[in-house]
């Protein structure tokens, strides 16, 4: 059961992140950091389905993580969900078409291993 939750946490979190990035990229780069302009950009973003669905996915991920904590130790939950770093990089490469060179792969792998060690 805990591994099912781990998979749900990791998959929904990385899908949510990828969708959020797609929504932001389609909106375009934020240039104007004045409050009024930021509020207008946020209103525009709420009208596209990308941001809404990504928030739903991230909420599911958070709920599943809380569920995981209810049946497993934190020292299992955090390392197990570190797989999310690798999954997100895969989605960034194949879904968003980002150029992931060996330094990015190695960096994501090192970070994932580091998170595992921190939680042990």
């Amino acid at each position, binding site marked *: 059961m805990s591994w099912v939750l781990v998979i749900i946490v990791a998959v929904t979190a990385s899908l949510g*992140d*990828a969708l*959020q*990035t*797609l929504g*932001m*990229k*389609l*909106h*375009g*780069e*934020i240039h104007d*950091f004045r409050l009024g302009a*930021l509020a207008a950009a*946020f209103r525009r*973003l709420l009208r596209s389905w990308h*941001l809404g669905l990504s928030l739903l996915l991230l909420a599911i991920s958070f709920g599943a993580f809380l569920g995981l904590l209810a049946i497993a130790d934190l020292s299992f939950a955090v390392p197990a969900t570190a797989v999310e*770093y690798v999954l*997100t*990089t895969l*989605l*960034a*490469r194949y879904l*968003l*078409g*980002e*150029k*992931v*060179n060996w*330094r*990015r792969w*190695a*960096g*994501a*792998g*090192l*970070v994932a*291993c*580091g*998170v*595992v*060690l*921190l*939680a*042990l």
Partner: protein
Amino acid sequence: MSRLRWKTRILATLVVLANVLGNFFLSLGLRHRVAATSSWLEALTSPWVLLGAGVLVFWMLCRLALLSWADLSWVVPVTASGYALTALIGRLFLGEQISATRWAGIALITLGVLLVRTTAIRTTSPRRLREGSG
């Protein structure tokens, strides 16, 4: 340094700090309340928890802005430095002990972050994404 580099650097720093501070406030509020054996509803409306939630909303907005130009595969590893920072803050301000294993974890995360920071911030063009998603 270009404008893109500067705003990326500033936003990435804000994302890391807001994440660390937000989680810190949340845990402060929840820990105090649990110690006082009060209800969950009370815990969730304690000032520290509300402050933590507010900071985390700010975190999400900063992260959204950063993702409007930076690659996801750049943002995710680089902002993971918050994990290492949380451990160091625990050591410096709360007197927590850091085991050899955890020091190794901090070292690996730092190395990974530095490696990803040497790569380009943006490798996609919005036009190509628009065409790709129909």
